[in-house]
C-alpha cells in the first residue's frame, strides 16, 4: 500500500494498489479507462494546431478525439451493464490520500456517455455554427479541456481527484462562456458563473474532505460502503451542507440559479453542451453519486427535495416570461434540474430511478432544443420571440425537430419526457412534506403546468402563427451538418418514448443500481401504467398549461406587476461591498508607514518570544564561562560608549557614523580575540567599504535633521528597543552558557583529506557548503545590479534635473585631491593588489580567501578614485564591473558544472599537489577556481555600487571631470590649483 503516513489505520482495509500500474480487475482493459479521461486533455492541443489545416480538419481532429474516447467507453459498456465495476489507477500522492483512481459503473457510464456522445454532436454542430471570424481552434481546445474535466469528474474514484476535475470544469467553462471576448455580456456572464460555481467549489472541497475524514478514505468506492458510519457521525450535517453548496451552485439550484441565464451569453454550442447536457448536471451527478451514503435522512430530504421543488416551480414560472429563446431554455433547464434534484431528494429508490431516467430524457430533448434555438438564431438572425414566428414553413426540418423536442419537454405522451414526468408525479404523489400530503403533489403539478406552458409557448411563438416580412435574415433550413445532430437526439426522444424498456431500460437499470447502491425496486418503464393519480395530475397540467398560454397577456401582466429582484445587480452589490470592506481593512492596516509596520512586527515578535519564555521553566546554564581579560572589558566599555553616542547623537550624522565605525572595529577585534581570524579580516574590510559608501551617500542627505519624535514616541521606541535587546542578549547568554552538539567535527576531520585545505572556514565556504556560497555571490551581484539600476535611473528625469540644480550644503575643500594622498595611494596600489592576491592564494590554508581578497582589492581601487578623482581613475581602469560580476558568477558555476562532467554531484571539489620549480610543492584545489569566482564577484559588486554613487556626485558637482589635473607629475596643473588656500 506504500507509505500512508497520516491515516495508516483507515487505509489498511483498502485493496492493494500497485505503484504506477493498473490495478484490480480486468488488467488488459483498465488503462483505457484512464485514457478516456486523458484523451480530451491530450487532444486539447490538437485543434489549436489543426486549425492551420482548415476548419474542417480542425473539427475532424477534435471530433476524432471525442470519438476515440467514446469508443473506448463503449468497450466497457457490456461489462458495466452486466453489473461489473471497472477500475484503474495508480498512486499519485499517497501521503495525502490523493490517487489517480478511476472507476466505471452504471452512473459513470451514463454520464460519460452523455458527455462524450453529446460532445461529439456539439463538435459537429459548432463546425457550422461558428462564423469564419471566430477562432475555431481555441474554441475546440477549450471544449476538449472541458470535456476531459467532465469525464474526469464522473469517472474519478478518488474524491480529491474529483475535486481537481470539478475546479477544472469551472475554469474551462469560464473560458467557454467568455469565448466571445468582445461581448461585455459574455465576460460578465463568465465572471458570474466562475464566482458562483467557484465559491460552491470551495464549499465542496471542505465538504468532501469532511466526508473523507468520516469514512477514513478518499476513495469513493470505499466511502460508499459506509452509509451507517457516515450518517451517524456528528460531522454528517456540516459535510452534507457543504457538499450541497457545491452541488446546488453547479446545478444552478435556487437560490443560486441566477448565474445560468447570464451564462447564456456564450455561443449556442456552449450553452447546449455545458448548460443543458453536462456541466450543470455535475451537481446532479454528485448528488446521485453520494446518494447511497447521504440520502435517506431528514436533513437530506428537507434540504434537497425542498430546494429541488422550489427550483422546479420558480424557474418554470420565470421561463414562461422569457422572450429570449436561450433565456427560456436556460430557466427551463434550471427547472428540470430542480425536478431531478427533488427526485433524488425524496430518498426512495423508485424516485432515484425516475431521476436517472429523467436525466437521460432531459439531456436528449434539451440539447436538441438548444441546437434548434441556435439554428433559428443563426438562420433567422434573431432569438428574440418578438422578431420571430411562422418559421414552420420556412424551415420545416428545424420546426419538426423543435416541436418534437418541445412536446417531450412539455411531457406529451409517446415522447420520452412524458414517461419520466409521469414517474416524477407518481413519486411526488406518494411523498408527504412535514406531515402534509398535499404540498409536494401540488407544487410538482404546478411545475408541470408551467413546463407545459413555456414549452408550447416556445414552439408556437417561433414556428407557428403568421409569417413575418421582417426577419433579420431570410430564414431557411441549415446545412445537414447543423440539423443532423439535433435530429439524432430527437430520434432518441421518440424511440425511448415509444419503447422505453428496449432503448433505455438496461442503461436506466445499471445507472439506478449504481445510484441506489443496492437492489432496485420493481418498476416498469412503460407508456401506460393504468389510471394512477399521476395521470390525473398530468392531464390537469396540460389543460391548465394550455389555458395559461391562451390567456397569456393577462398572465404576463400579472407577472410584471410583481417584484423582480435583479440577481446580477445584487451579486454586483455584494461583491462591491466585499471589495470595499477589504480595501478599507487593508488600507487601514497597511497605511504605508514603515515605522508603524516595524513597531507592529517588533511588538508581535516580543510578545511571542516573551510569552513562551515566561510560560516555561528554565534552569541556569552549566557550561563554564571564560574569564574576562582587562582588554576585553576596555573594548566592551568602548562599545557601550560608541553605541550610546550613536543613539544619543544620531541626529548629528557624521558623529553617529563615526560611532558606528568604532563599533565595527571593536567587533572585528572581538573576532580576532575569539579565534575567528577570517571573520575579523572580513569585518574590517567590509567596515572600510561601508563607511566610504555611507560618506558618499551622506554627501546628498541632510547632514542634520530636526527632532520630530515626541517624547512619548521616543519612550515607546526605547521600551521596545530595550526589550528586544534584553531578549536577544538573554538568548545569547542562555545559549553560550549551555553545552551543545555540533556537526563541525566532520568538517574539521575532512577539511584536509577531503577539501585539501587547512583553513576550515574557507574550505566550508568554497567546498563543503559551496552551494550556499554560490547563492550568496549571486545575491551580492544582484544587490549591486539593483544599486546600479536605482542610481542609473536617478540620473534621468526629474531627479536628474534636481541633481543639475544641486547646491552643496557644505563648502567644498579647495584641495580636493591632496598631493600626499595621491602619491601614497599610487605607490600603495601595487602593494595593495599584491596583498589582495596573496590573501586570495593563501586563503585555503590560512585566514584569507576570495571574500576578503575581493574586499581588499576593491578598497585599493576605491582609494584611487578617492585620492585622484573619479575621472582620472575611471580613465585608467577601463573595467566593466557588470562583466566582472557576471564572469565571477560564471566561473563559480563552471567550476560546479565541471564536476558534473566528471560524473560527480554539482560543486564536488578535487585537489592535487603540483611541483613548481623554485616555488616548490604547491597544492591546487578546484575549489580555488570557485574562490576566484567569489573574488571577482565581490570586487565587481563593491566597485559597481561605489562607482555609481560617485557618478551621482559628479553630476551634482557641476565641475568638469578632472581627468588631467590631478597628475602629480604635471607642474602646470599644480599651478592652477593653489595649495595654500
Amino acid at each position, binding site marked *: 500500500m506504500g507509505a500512508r503516513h497520516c491515516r495508516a489505520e483507515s487505509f489498511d482495509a483498502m485493496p492493494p494498489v500497485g505503484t504506477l500500474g493498473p490495478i484490480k480487475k480486468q488488467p488488459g482493459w483498465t488503462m483505457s479507462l484512464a485514457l478516456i479521461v486523458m484523451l480530451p486533455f491530450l487532444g486539447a492541443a490538437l485543434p489549436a494546431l489543426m486549425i492551420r489545416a482548415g476548419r474542417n480538419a480542425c473539427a475532424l481532429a477534435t471530433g476524432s478525439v471525442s470519438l476515440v474516447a467514446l469508443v473506448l467507453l463503449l468497450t466497457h459498456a457490456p461489462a458495466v451493464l452486466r453489473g461489473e465495476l471497472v477500475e484503474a489507477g495508480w498512486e499519485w500522492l499517497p501521503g495525502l490520500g490523493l490517487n489517480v483512481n478511476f472507476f466505471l459503473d452504471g452512473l459513470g457510464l451514463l454520464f460519460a456517455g452523455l458527455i462524450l456522445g453529446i460532445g461529439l454532436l456539439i463538435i459537429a454542430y459548432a463546425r457550422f455554427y461558428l462564423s469564419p471570424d471566430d477562432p475555431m481552434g481555441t474554441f475546440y481546445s477549450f471544449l476538449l479541456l472541458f470535456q476531459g474535466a467532465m469525464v474526469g469528474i464522473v469517472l474519478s474514484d478518488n474524491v480529491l481527484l474529483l475535486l481537481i476535475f470539478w475546479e477544472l470544469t469551472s475554469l474551462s467553462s469560464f473560458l467557454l462562456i467568455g469565448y466571445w471576448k468582445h461581448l461585455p455580456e459574455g465576460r460578465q456572464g463568465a465572471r458570474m458563473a466562475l464566482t458562483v460555481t467557484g465559491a460552491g467549489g470551495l464549499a465542496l472541497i471542505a465538504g468532501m474532505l469532511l466526508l473523507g475524514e468520516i469514512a477514513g478514505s478518499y476513495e469513493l468506492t470505499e466511502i460508499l460502503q459506509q452509509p451507517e458510519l457516515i450518517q451517524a457521525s456528528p460531522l454528517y450535517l456540516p459535510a452534507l451542507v457543504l457538499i450541497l453548496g457545491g452541488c446546488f451552485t453547479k446545478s444552478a439550484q435556487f437560490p443560486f440559479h441566477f448565474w445560468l441565464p447570464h451564462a447564456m451569453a456564450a455561443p449556442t454550442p456552449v450553452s447546449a453542451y455545458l448548460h443543458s447536457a453536462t456541466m450543470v448536471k455535475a451537481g446532479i451527478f454528485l448528488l446521485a453519486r453520494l446518494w447511497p451514503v447521504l440520502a435517506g435522512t431528514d436533513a437530506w430530504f428537507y434540504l434537497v427535495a425542498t430546494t429541488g421543488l422550489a427550483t422546479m416551480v420558480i424557474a418554470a414560472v420565470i421561463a414562461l416570461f422569457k422572450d429570449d429563446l436561450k433565456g427560456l431554455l436556460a430557466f427551463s433547464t434550471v427547472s428540470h434540474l430542480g425536478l431531478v434534484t427533488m427526485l433524488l431528494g425524496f430518498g426512495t429508490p423508485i424516485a432515484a430511478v425516475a431521476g436517472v431516467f429523467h436525466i437521460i430524457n432531459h439531456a436528449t430533448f434539451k440539447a436538441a432544443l438548444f441546437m434548434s434555438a441556435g439554428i433559428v438564431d443563426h438562420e433567422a438572425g434573431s432569438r428574440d420571440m418578438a422578431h420571430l414566428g411562422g418559421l414552420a414553413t420556412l424551415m420545416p426540418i428545424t420546426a419538426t425537430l423543435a416541436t418534437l423536442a418541445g412536446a417531450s419537454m412539455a411531457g406529451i405522451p409517446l415522447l420520452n419526457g412524458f414517461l419520466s414526468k409521469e414517474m416524477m408525479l407518481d413519486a411526488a404523489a406518494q411523498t408527504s412534506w412535514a406531515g402534509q400530503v398535499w404540498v409536494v403533489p401540488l407544487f410538482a403539478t404546478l411545475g408541470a403546468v408551467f413546463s407545459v406552458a413555456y414549452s408550447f409557448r416556445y414552439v408556437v411563438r417561433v414556428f407557428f402563427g403568421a409569417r413575418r416580412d421582417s426577419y433579420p435574415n431570410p430564414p431557411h433550413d441549415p446545412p445537414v451538418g447543423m440539423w443532423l445532430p439535433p435530429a439524432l437526439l430527437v430520434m432518441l426522444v421518440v424511440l425511448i418514448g415509444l419503447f422505453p424498456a428496449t432503448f433505455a431500460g438496461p442503461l436506466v437499470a445499471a445507472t439506478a443500481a449504481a445510484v441506489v447502491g443496492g437492489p432496485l425496486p420493481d418498476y416498469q418503464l412503460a407508456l401506460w401504467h393504468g389510471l394512477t393519480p399521476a395521470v390525473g395530475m398530468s392531464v390537469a397540467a396540460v389543460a391548465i398549461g394550455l389555458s395559461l398560454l391562451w390567456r397569456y397577456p393577462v398572465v404576463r401582466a400579472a407577472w410584471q406587476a410583481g417584484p423582480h429582484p435583479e440577481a446580477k445587480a445584487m451579486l454586483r452589490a455584494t461583491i462591491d461591498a466585499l471589495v470595499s470592506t477589504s480595501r478599507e481593512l487593508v488600507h487601514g492596516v497597511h497605511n504605508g*508607514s*514603515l*515605522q508603524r509596520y*516595524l513597531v507592529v512586527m*517588533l511588538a508581535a515578535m516580543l510578545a511571542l518570544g516573551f510569552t513562551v519564555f515566561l510560560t516555561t521553566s528554565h534552569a541556569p546554564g552549566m557550561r563554564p*564561562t*571564560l*574569564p574576562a*581579560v582587562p582588554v576585553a572589558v576596555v573594548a566592551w566599555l568602548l*562599545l*557601550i560608549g560608541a*553605541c550610546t553616542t*550613536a*543613539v544619543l547623537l*544620531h541626529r548629528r550624522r557624521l558623529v553617529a557614523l563615526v560611532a*558606528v565605525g568604532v*563599533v*565595527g572595529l571593536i567587533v572585528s577585534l572581538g573576532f580576532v580575540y575569539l*579565534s*575567528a581570524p577570517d*571573520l575579523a579580516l*572580513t569585518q574590517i574590510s*567590509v567596515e572600510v*567599504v561601508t563607511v566610504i559608501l555611507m560618506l558618499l*551617500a551622506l554627501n546628498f*542627505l541632510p547632514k542634520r*535633521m530636526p527632532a*520630530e*519624535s515626541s517624547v512619548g*514616541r521616543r519612550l515607546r*521606541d526605547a521600551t*521596545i*528597543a*530595550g526589550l*528586544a*535587546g534584553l531578549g*536577544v542578549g*538573554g*538568548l*545569547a547568554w542562555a545559549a*553560550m*552558557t549551555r553545552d551543545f552538539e555540533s556537526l*563541525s567535527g566532520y*568538517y*574539521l576531520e575532512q577539511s584536509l583529506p577531503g577539501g585539501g585545505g587547512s*583553513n*576550515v572556514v574557507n574550505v566550508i*565556504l568554497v567546498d563543503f557548503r559551496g552551494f550556499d556560497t554560490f547563492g*550568496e555571490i549571486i545575491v*551580492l551581484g544582484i*544587490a549591486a545590479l539593483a*544599486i546600479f539600476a*536605482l542610481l542609473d*535611473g536617478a540620473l534621468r528625469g526629474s*531627479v536628474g534635473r*534636481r*541633481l543639475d540644480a544641486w547646491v552643496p550644503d557644505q563648502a567644498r575643500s579647495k584641495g580636493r585631491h591632496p598631493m600626499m594622498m595621491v602619491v601614497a595611494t599610487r605607490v600603495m596600489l601595487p602593494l595593495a593588489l599584491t596583498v589582495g592576491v596573496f590573501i586570495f592564494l593563501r586563503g585555503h590554508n590560512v585566514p584569507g580567501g576570495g*571574500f576578503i581578497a575581493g574586499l581588499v582589492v576593491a578598497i585599493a581601487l576605491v582609494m584611487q578614485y578617492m585620492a585622484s578623482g573619479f575621472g582620472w581613475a575611471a580613465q585608467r581602469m577601463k573595467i566593466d564591473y557588470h562583466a566582472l560580476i557576471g564572469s565571477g558568477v560564471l566561473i563559480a558555476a563552471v567550476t560546479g558544472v565541471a564536476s558534473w562532467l566528471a560524473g560527480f554531484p554539482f560543486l564536488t571539489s578535487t585537489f592535487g599537489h603540483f611541483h613548481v620549480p623554485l616555488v616548490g610543492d604547491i597544492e591546487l584545489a578546484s575549489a580555488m577556481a570557485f574562490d576566484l569566482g567569489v573574488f571577482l564577484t565581490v570586487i565587481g559588486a*563593491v566597485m559597481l555600487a561605489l562607482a555609481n*554613487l560617485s557618478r551621482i556626485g559628479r553630476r551634482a558637482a557641476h565641475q568638469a571631470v578632472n581627468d588631467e589635473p590631478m597628475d602629480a607629475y604635471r607642474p602646470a596643473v599644480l599651478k592652477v590649483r593653489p595649495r595654500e588656500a
Partner: protein
Amino acid sequence: MEFLVASAVGLLTAAGVFLLLRARTFPVVLGLTLLSYAINVFLFSMGRLAVNLPPVINDLNKGYTDPLPQALVLTAIVISFGMTAVIVVMALRAYLESGSDHVDAMPERRSGGKDGQ
C-alpha cells in the same frame, strides 16, 4: 567573557532597534548596520566562545573552535554589506525623488512627508 559578549549583543540590538524606529532614513540605515553587527555576533556566539583555537588545521593546536558558525557569519557579513548598500541607495534615491528623507516620504506630491502613524 560570555557576559560581555551577550550584553554587547543585547546593547547592539537595542541601539539598532531604536534607530530603526526613527523617522529619517540615515538613522534607520545606521540602525540596520548595528542590528547586523548584533545578529552576526549572535550567530557567531552559537559556536560558543574560545580563545586561541582558530579553526585552522595545525598539528601544534590544542583544539579548534567551531568553524561552521564562522563560515555562515562570514558570508552574512558580506551579504549585510550588500543589503546596507541597497538600503543606502534606496534612501538616497527616495530623497532625490521626494525631496524629503523621511522614511515614509512619497515621490512628488507629498514632498514634505508625514510623520508615521
